[in-house]
């Protein structure tokens, strides 16, 4: 058996044995209708093409090692082409080409069918989320026909299980790509254009999405969290997001709010219910309710929040949030305040 094949099957075995294929960011661990259809198509392609590959390898092996009819001539090659053999080989060639044609026609057809099926979901969407990509984070708007029932968050998408959701994709700067492998394939966000995709989660869970088009310095740290939850919990979450930010509950937080509103922070961020209303950076109204910070760079925790605000450039070099020099006290206050924004 050829080495490539051995390594191949080893790799495959490895993948199946490790938690690998069952990842939070794996196309082979579908949690949505589209990802499921695509994964099915994938295994089908893999099966068919693996057989093709085995046939080629077997042919090669036989060709290289079969016993020869004649001994090696001492004086160079045999020039005569034997008519009989040429004819046989030509027959084989024709069959091979026809077979190849048949296989690719089938695969094209299957691929097309799956594509149609996936697209069929587009019209069924019940909710609309507008995702705008920015270097290097995601602005997420839940649009509602009633403007006051629209709200904004960042780097996080929550979905009700079983409900198809239309995702409107825009970019403010360069091209990015929206990709949540467990749910669906990717679609680019292109400045000057509006794209669309549909997501539907078949089961509860937390998935990781990541920007898939190179978008500069921090392309690597432009992830997002997708949380699929039952409808009722989703609705509750939605209500909570509609409310303005909680007022600071203690002195430390109150002092932190003051710092936030008087320091540079206010020039870039929005916190509903306060005077902070800039849209350069993520909306922080409910920042403490998010699973992660800075587009999936850090899991959310009070410590990480403090670390981020103290030096965002060390954690995510080159990102668009500058260092704001705060005294330890001020920092403590800001962190306490933001951490209270559930």
């Amino acid at each position: 058996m050829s080495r490539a094949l051995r390594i191949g099957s080893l790799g495959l075995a490895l993948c199946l044995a490790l938690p690998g294929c069952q990842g939070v960011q794996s196309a082979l661990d579908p949690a949505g209708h589209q990802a499921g259809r695509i994964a099915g198509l994938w295994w089908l392609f893999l099966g068919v093409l693996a057989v093709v590959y085995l046939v080629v390898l077997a042919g090669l092996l036989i060709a290289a090692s079969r016993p020869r009819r004649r001994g090696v001539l001492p004086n160079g090659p045999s020039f005569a082409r034997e008519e009989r053999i040429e004819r046989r080989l030509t027959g084989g060639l024709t069959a091979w080409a026809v077979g190849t044609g048949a296989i690719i026609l089938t695969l094209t057809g299957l691929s097309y069918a799956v594509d149609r099926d996936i697209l069929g979901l587009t019209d069924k969407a019940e909710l609309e989320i507008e995702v705008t990509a920015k270097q290097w984070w995601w602005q997420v708007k839940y649009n509602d026909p009633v403007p006051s029932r629209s709200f904004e968050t960042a780097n996080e998408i929550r979905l009700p299980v079983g409900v198809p959701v239309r995702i409107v994709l825009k970019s403010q700067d360069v091209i990015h790509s929206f990709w949540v492998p467990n749910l669906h394939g990717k679609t680019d966000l292109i400045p000057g254009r509006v794209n669309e995709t549909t997501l539907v989660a078949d089961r509860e869970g937390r998935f990781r999405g990541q920007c898939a088009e190179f978008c500069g310095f921090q392309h690597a740290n432009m992830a997002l969290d997708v949380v699929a939850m039952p409808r009722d919990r989703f609705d509750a979450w939605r209500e909570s997001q509609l409310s303005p930010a909680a007022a600071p509950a203690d002195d430390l937080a109150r002092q932190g709010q003051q710092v936030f509103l008087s320091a540079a922070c206010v020039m870039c961020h929005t916190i509903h219910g306060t005077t902070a209303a800039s849209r350069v950076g993520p909306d922080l109204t409910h920042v403490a309710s998010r699973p992660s910070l800075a587009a999936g760079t850090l899991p959310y925790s009070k410590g990480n929040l403090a670390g981020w605000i103290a030096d965002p450039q060390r954690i995510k070099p080159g990102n668009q949030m500058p260092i704001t020099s705060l005294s330890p006290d001020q920092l403590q206050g800001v962190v306490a305040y933001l951490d209270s924004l559930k």
Partner: protein
Amino acid sequence: MTAGTDTAVVRRDGPGLGEAETNARLARSWATPPGLWGWLSTVDHKQVGRRYVVTAFTFFVLAGLLALAMRMQLAGPERTLLSPDRYNQIFTMHGTTMMFLFAVPMMEAFAIYLVPLMVGTRAIAFPRLNAFSYWVYLAGGIMLWVAFILNVGPDVGWFSYVPLAGPQYSPGKRVDFWAQMVTFTEVAALAVAVEIIVTVFKQRAPGMSLNRIPLFVWGQLVTSFMVVFAMPAVMVSSSMLIMDRLIGTHFFNPAEGGDALLWQHLFWFFGHPEVYIIFLPATGFVSSILPTFARRPIFGYTALVLALFATGFLGFGLWVHHMFATGLPHLGNSFYTAASMAIAIPSGIQIFCWIATLWDGRPRFATPLLFVIGFIVVFVLGGLSGIMLASVPLDSQVHDTYFVVAHFHYVLIGGAVFPLFGAFYYWFPKFTGRMLSERVGAWNFGLFFVGFNLAFFPMHILGLIGMPRRVYSYPAGVGWDELNLLATAGAVILAAGVATFVGNVWHSLKHGVSAGDNPWGAGTLEWATSSPPPSYNFTHIPVVTGQEPLWTLPQGLPAQGLPVVGGLRVDQRELLLTTVVDADPDLREPSPEPSIWPLLSALAVTALFIGSIFTPWAVVWGAIPLAVGLIGWFWPKSPPDTPEPVID
């Protein structure tokens, strides 16, 4: 009629002039002057070809070292060996160098060296243009690498998508150097393509009718046509990019009626054919090596030629498969799925013919054949993953992930670098007169093959389980750690394979076994002359009577036994031109002498291109030295030669 008394006869090759005398006179007419001046002014296609090979290989090693740096950074999660800025420059330089400065020029290099020999002529068509193309290519490569070393290397990926590469998001000069590098290399590639086309059309030895052209030459011919139709696209797009960046045009600016996808269409209209521009010459290597070591003429010559045409033709109809995620209409995308998959038919036909040749032959497993077998094993896997990518739904998942990285290294390294190493082992004796060590060759192959698969197979899985490409680091706990470590280990073994090769060359250049004219008992014309070939390639132009002229010789005759034609001048550089289809002798045309002007013109072009990065006026004032260079180049050196001696 005795030599010496009748000048009309001695100035031509023919029965009247002894072989030693003919060779001496040809050597004088075709010699490159000695010393530095000669080195700078040579127009000998073998010297230029050798330079191309060495330069392109140097770029391969440099880009390979960058790849090692990337693999070190990615060996584990959240490593900090490279900063994001460095990493972005490094992967861009790696891809750009491999594609523009290694793969394409390397294939051109072999064409420049071998096509004239294989078609049995004394020189390439337009040898000065050829010398010029090399200097331009070298200048472009040096410019890019100097910029990289000075920390102004491009950092937007080898296809420089706008608007990221545009004036707003990539201020500074980084992307300008990238765009001008494209211009340099494309000028060189287009020049070489025209030379190859004309060499093949007009300079084939008498009797080399279309059905006797070696498959390698067919491959290079189809490739050259692809260059002619594909490269203008990237010239147009990179010029638009540089104008957007430097003089404020708005081709890609959506705010002023431009469009980001225009770039992608133009780039991939070039970019997809580009991969076949790399692959088709490599199939020529395979079709040359296989018959020699299978000891049997190739099976399915006509089918293989048609497959080349089909691939070349289809290759222009599927660029959109790189853009499936951009949100283009799905109906159109399905067309590109079908067109992409259709390439499997010609590719499959090629694979079949090669295996059939091996099957019906009596193979000798020398190193070149090992690499050809490695090629089949690796390339077919890469081709099949290409079929997966061609499916719109599957691609929507794996696009821009390590699955694609795996695909293209399987087809690029499998489809081009494996055959290339085979070609090195196969033609090294012709280029240098010495054999490479077969024992080291086996090690070279083994390390390369094992290392390659270890490095790149895991990437398929990485892509499927979510790892995007072009990330300088990745978080722990997503499940990518082990496979990345494996890939890094593979890359190290692969590098050891490359190092083995370099060592083999180093040693064999001095101590290799002497090769003789035709060490492998091969059948094509390049083996009918000495190793390395003399400056004039052949003492007499051979007459071709079959696909493998040396094999169709009457048994027992050495290569010198080929029938030949006489009557070409030996006191001057003269070529035999033949008709396009039948290769009937038609004309004797002079071939240019060495000249410094190609180098000077290339320097002028370099000043113009690099200057234009800093001011658009460079195009205007740079045109003046360029015009001087070109006039010097084409101005006849001496008054017309004394009229040709009359023939009685």
